[in-house]
């Protein structure tokens, strides 16, 4: 693995994403028992653009999309980013192992696709942050 850092990174991200989906599955929105608090709300006492995101993820993984949308309107968008990334890790790892000649291009393609996907899915958050900083 040390000789193939790309595969090691993909493996770590896959494990992280499994934990992320597990976290959403174990803790439910109805019980409201998510252990990670909103640090922003804890400090300022104000609601923010990401408030209700954990509860939204818990509802998405249970198929309650309408309820998920009510908790946070960007929940589905952000969840989709992690969901697509989960499959991309398998896909790019597969190509990396079996198409050895194109390894360099696979890493570059992965980077570009991931950046574009990130900007697309997190766009409202980026806009919100830029406006909050520039005020």
């Amino acid at each position, binding site marked *: 693995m040390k000789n193939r850092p790309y595969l090691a990174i993909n493996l*770590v991200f896959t494990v992280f994403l499994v934990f992320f989906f597990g976290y959403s599955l174990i803790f439910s929105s109805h019980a409201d028992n998510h252990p*990670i608090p909103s*640090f922003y709300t804890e400090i300022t006492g104000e609601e923010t653009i990401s408030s209700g995101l954990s509860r939204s993820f818990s509802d998405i993984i249970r198929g309650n999309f309408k309820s998920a949308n009510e908790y946070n309107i960007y929940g589905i968008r952000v969840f989709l980013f992690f969901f697509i990334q989960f499959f991309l890790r398998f896909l790019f790892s597969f190509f990396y192992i079996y198409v050895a000649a194109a390894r360099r291009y696979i890493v570059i393609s992965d980077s570009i696709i991931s950046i574009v996907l990130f900007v697309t899915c997190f766009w409202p958050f980026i806009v919100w942050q830029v406006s909050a900083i520039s005020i």
Partner: protein
Amino acid sequence: MDKQTTTAGQGLGIAALVLGILAIPLAIIPCTFIVALIFGITGIALSSVALSQANRGNGAKGLIIAALVCSILGTTIATLWGLSMNKGARVARRFLRQEFRNDLDKEFEKAFKGFGEDMEEAFDDLEEDLEEEKGKDLEDTLLRIEKELDNKNEE
């Protein structure tokens, strides 16, 4: 002739890159910016150690530099959140202070609403009384002069 690159610093570099990449989305989400700050700072520390290891052992530096860049980016975004939050809190405090001032002004206005009118009335009454007093004095003086004149005439 170039020396062959080794795997020196690669393990730490991988760990730093993972932390750095994770720090960026976590920093963008306001609720998790503290986690991003921890990941980012740890990533910077790990990639710095990995870079020095790679320099000593002639290791590949591309991955480590990428880790350093991602960690710095994540830390910067999280720090900006912290700063903007401070700014937000300052704006909120200023807003609350202004609200308090407005409330205080309203209370003063309510408390002293009839006060001015009452004072004016009191002053008017006082002036009238004084004028009356003055009039009485004048009358008394005139009567006194008349009496004196009458007395002189009689003499």
